């Protein structure tokens, strides 16, 4: 069942089309990656979902119901351009922002204490925000985004400004939130984290969705039947024959590493059969395209059209 559906959403600013009939479907309790180059329209779409911007046309449904401003309570949003009131104390501010999302004060206080303990930042409660480093502020921002246990979480570039240790901490928390029932939309340029976290993706380029679907299905769709084989042998094997094309071969001492594209009648097993009698195989695997490759390829293709 889908938690959020956007159907043919369009938006233009003074002559410039920011979104052109964009549709996405975010399944309940999944992580949805929104990818795209800068200026593609990701932030506009996110702002429309948050009711910050009004759409020109199209529909947005949350749990099957048309979105209304009151639904923003069920959304937690961490914008790309984010900040806090600098002169305000951390705890005071977190409480204020939680209450702004409709939490009762006492509950907000208890929950915040839990989160502050979890992130090991309880000692910051009475500090002013301006005394905190950027990374520290990001932690506080993450907490205030998730504090009211929203059904839908929207993170725009959540990892920017974090060190690798905190990135991992954040990833764990995001996965935990999904396990607890939250649905997450997640916009980023960090492709490694997309592969690691996302269940579905949509690639937006030039205000249009040019690719969307389940992540493994997309990777399969884009795989080029290339296999990488490592074997030990005194000399390089001659594998160029019907159905196989050797793309490259590297030699290190007595070990060869070849990338072979299987074409036409060939199959991965046939390739194995062909090599096995002649050399000792140490590894054999299919080379799958990374989301990064797909992203670059698709964006380039779209621009050439």
């Amino acid at each position: 069942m889908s938690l959020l559906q956007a159907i043919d959403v369009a938006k233009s600013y003074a002559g410039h089309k920011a979104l052109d009939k964009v549709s996405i479907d975010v399944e309940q309790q999944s992580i949805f990656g929104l990818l795209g180059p800068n200026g593609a329209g990701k932030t506009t779409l996110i702002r429309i979902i948050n009711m910050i911007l009004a759409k020109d046309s199209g529909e947005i449904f949350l749990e099957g119901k048309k979105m209304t401003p009151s639904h923003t309570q069920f959304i937690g949003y961490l914008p790309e351009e984010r900040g806090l009131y600098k002169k305000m104390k951390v705890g005071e501010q977190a409480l204020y922002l939680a209450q702004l999302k409709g939490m009762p004060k006492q509950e907000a206080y208890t929950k915040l204490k839990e989160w502050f303990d979890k992130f090991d930042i309880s000692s910051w409660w009475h500090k002013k925000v301006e005394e905190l480093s950027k990374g520290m502020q990001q932690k506080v921002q993450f907490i205030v985004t998730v504090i009211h246990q929203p059904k839908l979480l929207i993170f725009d570039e959540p990892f920017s400004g974090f060190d690798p240790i905190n990135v991992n901490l954040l990833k764990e928390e995001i996965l935990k939130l999904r396990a607890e029932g939250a649905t997450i939309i997640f916009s980023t340029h960090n492709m490694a984290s997309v592969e690691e976290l996302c269940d579905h993706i949509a690639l937006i380029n030039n205000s249009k969705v040019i690719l969307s679907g389940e992540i493994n299905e997309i990777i399969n769709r884009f795989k080029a039947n290339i296999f990488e084989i490592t074997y030990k042998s005194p000399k390089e094997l001659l594998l160029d024959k019907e159905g196989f094309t050797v793309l490259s071969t590297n030699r290190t001492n007595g070990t060869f590493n070849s990338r072979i594209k299987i074409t036409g009648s060939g199959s991965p097993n046939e390739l194995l059969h062909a090599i096995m009698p002649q050399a000792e195989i140490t590894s054999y695997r299919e080379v799958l395209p990374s989301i990064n490759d797909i992203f670059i390829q698709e964006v380039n293709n779209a621009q050439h059209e």
Partner: protein
Amino acid sequence: MKKKSFIIMTILGPLLMAATIILPAFLADWSEATKKRVAVLDETGWFHEKFKDQDNITFYYIYDDLETSKENAIHEKGDLLLYIPRTQLNIPVNAQLYSTIQPGLNVTTYIRTVMKKEIENRKLLASGIDPEVIKSAKTNINLTTYRIEEGGVEKKSNTEVEVGLSIFAGIMIYFFIFMFGAQVLKGVMEEKSSRIVEVIISSVKPFQLMMGKIVGIALVGLTQFFLWIVLTALFLGIFQSGLFGGSIPENLAQWDQSGQVIEQSIQTENIGLDKLELVKEIIDGINFRVMIFSFIFYFLGGFLLYASLFAAIGGAVDQDADTQQFMLPVSIPLIFSVMMTGVIINQPDSSLSMWLSFIPFTSPVTMMMRIPFGVPLWQIWTSAVLLILGFIATTWLAAKIYRTGILMYGKKVSYAEIWKWLKNK
């Protein structure tokens, strides 16, 4: 966040106000506290015994030559020496005052007055006129003006009082709009530059955020206004009893309970008491309920009008430096209305004054200036309705600019750009 500065301003404001009222009187008293002695060396003999001892000045006469007198009076006794030399025309219009210290304005003024009077008297006598005749011919005119209100009620009015009140009210409105308008601007810019604004508007609408800020600061302004009035009165009370041992100096006696100072000339010798009575009567005549009510209305109306424009500027610009080009055109009508003070208090009923008090951009200041003089009810209503329409219009415009502006980063805005935002749905 702004708690500290609010408290400081709340206490400091009235302290300053009380101080500006009290201090001149106090300083004047204090600086004259040292007694001065003046030795008079009068070669003409015209002024013998004419200089009478004053509060802080005593006179004595000497008959030595100038050098000896200087030696004795100034260097030995440390007094002042007034030397009136004999002149060719036999009219001693020149005099010299020697001293090692600054003689002080009251000393020179007194000497000048006495000499002038004496010479005039002698001249009159020489032309055969008895100075007593002139004296008896001098008359003091007390012109009491009455304003006939609708329904035929006569009210004693006094233009001096009204002018004072008028300027005070106009400047206060101007000051409050600017001071708290600047706070709105600062607040909006802070939210934008710290990038918290997008987090907030994912929970509340941009319009709500903007209006919340404006209304919040308006309430802070009103609170501060009331606290100022109360505290100023309080501080004045403390100052008076503390510094003057309970006795109220002459020029403070006209302090009335509502917090207005009535200017009055120093010549209270003959008519002082009458005038005090008169002032009291006039104060009773001023409708303070109308004054306070209209102050609150015009402060709120003017503030909402200007603060929404300030909020739009704060939302549109990215850096402090860019605010200037937008602040200027917005502030000009406000500054202009203060510059019109002279015109309005001279002719509060002229058609220029009337139109200025209709235009929403100038009406808060100019109408407050006119109200102490009495304004026809229909004009107040027209001005009030126009002001309400005015701030609805500016708020509507401002909301559009604000909504688009707060999410625009790193872009230098121009008027053309803002025009585009206004056309956006």
